[in-house]
């Protein structure tokens, strides 16, 4: 109450300053006149009356000042004066100001950019009602935690209204959506009944899904579309309600459009089409069969998450015991249930990128710290140069606090000047980074905007920087004793502060070394990955990805497509070989199948599973995979020929040891669909899933002999006589010319496909390098600033030395030696810090460890060179001092 009144009064006084001043004038004037009038009435002569009124009133200027102070205005006045003074000071040294503002802009901008990404991906709560009470129910086992469920399990959970006020399940997918004849991939989901009610998501147009829509076997299939999809595909047409769209070949009627801010529960991936789960419930009705179906619930008021977790865990154990046969899946994923908070959505993107982002956050934090130390060093040097001015002000009675405040104002002004371009840089930079995230899940719908969270973070960071880089120099500056500053030369008081400046520069070198080492490690790891022998040739291969689900490519039509297309593509000019395959190296797909090797008794569960890849003739030629033994799959292996297989080296070694694999038999699949193949060759090891390895047990079978190989996703691969990028358009055109309705998903080079798996590494290495370069530049500025100052201070001393016969070269060396000493001390400390902290990088590195000696030495050498270069100009200046001029100055 009192505080509110005071704030209000202060604001009124500060904002309507001139009016307040006028009122104060009027009021006091009135007082004087009234008093004079009273005195006149008592018979005092007019002139005397006026004089006495003035005298009795006292010093009007003093009372006015006291009046301003009692309204809290003195602070404002002083701040205004400080700001004016600071602006003038900064204008006088534009070089320093520019360097300071630029380094702060980079430091604060980089922090804001990474923070904003972390925020949208990891921390921001979902735009739904009370996100904090939402939990996700997952199952877990020896292989970790997954989002597995089936419809009966969902229903059993939903019945627990004593634990959850709402519970729903979601099945997400990329659908083939046909609108007005054109088919496009669209992210969408099937949701159970209480989805929209639980999240309290409303329709801006039409309605959301109603209980009636969720009855199994509902005659009409309905869909709700996202606001973005409505705008993008229907131009925001209000007549969209009632329109029919075809999703995976089934028609749905659009009944509503959701609110613009709602994207679903998957961060970065907007669910454009939402349909009732009832449509697909029959497919998930077997309680022994588990699919990826995230379950989300809202805890009932008063129910602790721990209690819900315990109850659900007990339920799962009973459910699994009743319905799921024991085996690998049950042991790996269905041993227990976990109830996790899900207030910020579930995110595959988050899981993939949040460790990297946290690492980057640490890096930019370090960068900002370096920038602050750098600025602190520069300010210390500058304040020392200003010691005379400060001494005079202290001598004239300025309080130390007052001077500290004035110096801090200067720092704050610098910080503000740096923050504004920093935020612009951050918004641009973070959206640029988002553009680099590969579209595994369809188009990403992430964007960073200037919201209050970003603003708050930036203000916080900027304030901390002011204290960090401004506080020490400001405090230090006032430790000057007024008397010597006025009486004598500068030398009496500067030694202490040059010592502080040196410490700061050395600290800066140490911190920079950590950043530079980290960046070098990531770059070298990236280079190792680029060079590693993957077992196949990375260049000269073009990949055509086919995505058949939802199209009418099935059965014989599909087989014919697969059979005839490689020959047609191989006939294109410049195409050397063409083939078809279930998967190609590093495309992210897995096709693990149950196998039994004749004559080998499985030693464990792992022994009965291998990756099966159905390939066409010339697969090994296209990818340049050499045979270690026997022959590859080729034209002989038609549908009617004896079933042949090629196995990977790892496979052969695992099951047959030193003896030959040729002629051995393997049964793929179980029960009726099982089929036995005979090994005809052993292929060289291929980095199949990740460039980091390890080798996998792979069986290559003929695509045309496979009945069971997954027919829906497969790829054509071409070996071209030049850069495959030049064949992208030609290959696509040829396929569509022959088969206009072919479901071609993507045409890309093998290099592109590999690079997608390296996005994270690439991102870390390139950003790390950028930060390291900035840190090096700052280190150079820091050393230069300090030495330039030291040389300027020492001019008289150097003059005397030269006059006494010292060689200019000695002065040169004396200065450069100082720079090298700083670099050496800083680097030494930095090496210790780097060795201790960079271990966190180990899991990201490939082919070298975080304490790699060559890298550490390289970073140290780099910093020493920077120290040398930065010390060069001041050193030359020292050598060029004219003894006569120098001594005369004294």
């Amino acid at each position, binding site marked *: 109450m*009192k505080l509110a009144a005071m704030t209000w009064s202060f604001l009124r006084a500060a904002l309507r300053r001139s009016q307040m001043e006028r009122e104060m004038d009027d*009021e006091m004037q*009135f007082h004087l006149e009234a008093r004079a009038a009273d005195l006149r009435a008592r018979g005092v002569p007019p002139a005397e009356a006026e004089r006495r009124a003035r005298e009795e009133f006292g010093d009007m200027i003093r*009372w006015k000042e006291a009046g301003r102070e009692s309204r809290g205005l003195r602070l404002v006045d002083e701040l205004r004066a400080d700001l004016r003074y600071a602006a003038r000071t900064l204008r006088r040294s534009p070089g320093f100001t520019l360097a300071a503002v630029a380094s702060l802009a980079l430091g604060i901008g980089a922090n804001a950019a990474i923070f904003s990404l972390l925020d949208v991906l990891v921390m921001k709560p979902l735009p739904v009602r009370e996100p904090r009470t939402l939990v996700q129910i997952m199952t877990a086992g020896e292989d970790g935690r997954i989002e597995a469920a089936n419809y009966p399990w969902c229903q059993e959970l939903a019945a627990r209204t004593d634990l959850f006020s709402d519970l729903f399940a979601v099945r997400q997918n990329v659908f083939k959506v046909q609108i007005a004849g054109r088919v496009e991939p669209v992210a969408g989901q099937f949701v159970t009944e209480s989805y929209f009610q639980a999240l309290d998501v409303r329709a801006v147009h039409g309605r959301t899904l109603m209980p009636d829509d969720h009855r199994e076997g509902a005659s009409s299939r309905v869909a709700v579309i996202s606001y973005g999809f409505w705008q993008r595909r229907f131009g925001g047409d209000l007549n969209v309600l009632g329109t029919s769209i075809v999703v995976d070949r089934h028609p749905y009627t659009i009944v509503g459009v959701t609110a613009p801010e709602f994207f679903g529960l998957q961060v970065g991936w907007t669910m454009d089409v939402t349909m009732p789960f009832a449509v697909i419930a029959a497919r998930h009705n077997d309680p022994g069969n588990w699919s990826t179906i995230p379950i989300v619930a809202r805890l009932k008021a008063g129910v602790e998450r721990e209690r819900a977790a315990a109850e659900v865990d007990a339920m799962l154990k009973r459910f699994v015991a009743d319905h799921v046969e024991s085996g690998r899946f049950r042991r790996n994923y269905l041993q227990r249930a976990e109830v996790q908070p899900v207030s910020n959505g579930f995110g595959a993107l988050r899981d993939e990128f949040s460790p990297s982002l946290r690492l980057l956050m640490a890096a930019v934090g370090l960068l900002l710290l370096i920038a602050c130390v750098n600025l602190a060093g520069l300010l210390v040097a500058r304040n020392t140069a200003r010691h005379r001015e400060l001494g005079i002000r202290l001598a004239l009675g300025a309080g130390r606090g007052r001077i500290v405040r004035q110096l801090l104002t200067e720092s704050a002004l610098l910080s503000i000047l740096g923050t504004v371009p920093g935020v612009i840089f951050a918004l641009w930079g973070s959206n640029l980074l988002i553009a680099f995230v590969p579209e595994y899940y369809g188009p990403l719908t992430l964007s960073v905007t200037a919201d209050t969270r970003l603003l708050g973070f930036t203000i916080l960071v900027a304030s901390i920087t002011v204290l960090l880089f401004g506080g020490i120099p400001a405090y230090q500056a006032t430790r000057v004793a007024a008397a010597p500053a006025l009486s004598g030369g500068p030398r009496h008081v500067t030694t202490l502060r040059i010592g502080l400046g040196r410490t700061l520069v050395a600290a800066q070198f140490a911190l920079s070394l950590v950043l530079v080492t980290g960046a070098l490690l990531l770059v070298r790891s990236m280079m190792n990955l680029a060079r590693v022998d993957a077992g196949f040739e990375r260049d000269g291969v073009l990949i055509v990805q086919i995505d058949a689900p939802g199209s009418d490519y099935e059965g014989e039509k599909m087989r014919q497509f697969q059979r005839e297309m490689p020959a047609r593509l191989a006939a294109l000019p410049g195409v050397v070989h063409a083939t078809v395959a279930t998967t190609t190296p590093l495309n992210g797909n897995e096709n693990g199948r149950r196998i039994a090797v004749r004559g080998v008794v499985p030693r464990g569960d792992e022994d009965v599973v291998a990756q099966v890849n159905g390939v066409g003739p010339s697969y090994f030629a296209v990818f340049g995979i050499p045979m270690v033994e026997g022959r590859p799959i080729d034209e002989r292996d038609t549908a009617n020929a004896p079933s042949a297989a090629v196995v990977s080296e790892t496979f052969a070694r695992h099951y047959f040891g030193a003896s030959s694999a040729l002629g051995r038999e393997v049964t793929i699949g179980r029960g009726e669909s099982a089929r036995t193949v005979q090994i005809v060759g052993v292929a060289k090891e291929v980095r199949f899933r990740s460039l980091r390895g390890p080798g996998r047990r792979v069986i290559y079978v003929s695509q045309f002999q496979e009945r069971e190989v997954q027919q829906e996703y497969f790829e054509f691969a071409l070996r071209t006589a030049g850069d495959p990028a030049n064949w992208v358009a030609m290959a696509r055109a040829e396929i569509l010319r022959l088969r206009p309705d072919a479901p071609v998903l993507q045409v890309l080079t093998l290099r592109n496909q590999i690079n997608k798996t390296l996005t994270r590494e690439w991102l870390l290495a390139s950003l790390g390098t950028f930060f390291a370069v900035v840190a090096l530049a700052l280190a150079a500025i820091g050393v230069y600033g300090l030495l330039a100052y030291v040389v300027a201070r020492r001019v008289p001393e150097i003059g005397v030395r030269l006059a006494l016969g010292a060689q200019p070269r000695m002065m040169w060396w004396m200065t450069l030696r100082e720079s090298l000493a700083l670099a050496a001390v800083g680097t030494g400390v930095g090496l210790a810090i780097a060795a201790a902290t960079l271990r966190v990088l180990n899991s990201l590195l490939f082919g070298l460890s975080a304490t790699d000696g060559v890298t550490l030495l390289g970073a140290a050498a780099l910093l020493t060179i920077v120290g040398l270069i930065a010390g060069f100009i001041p050193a030359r200046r020292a050598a060029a001092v004219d003894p006569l001029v120098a001594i005369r100055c004294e």
Partner: protein
Amino acid sequence: VTKATEVLQGTLDLLILKAISLGPLHGYGILLRLQQITRDALQIHQGSLYPALYRLEHQGLVTFEWGESDNKRQAKYYKLTTAGRRRLREETEYWNRLSAAIGAVLNAVPEDV
């Protein structure tokens, strides 16, 4: 001639509150009323009234409106707010207790101990 007593540090605010509790007054009017009540026993620096008034205004204890004075000029008339009235009551009680206590101490004679 009795010597005027200096106003104790901090009591000027209380005196002002009391003066305007009897009716809205402008700055000069407050001075006159205080002099009249105290019969000039207290010496008040005239100019010091104004910083005190602004302080009270800043704390939300008094408010003002412009009005016409006896000599037909615009003047700022101060009056108490609710918070001001409460403050005056509290301060008055405190003063009474304090002066009674101090009076008792100062008037003590050996028989009382």
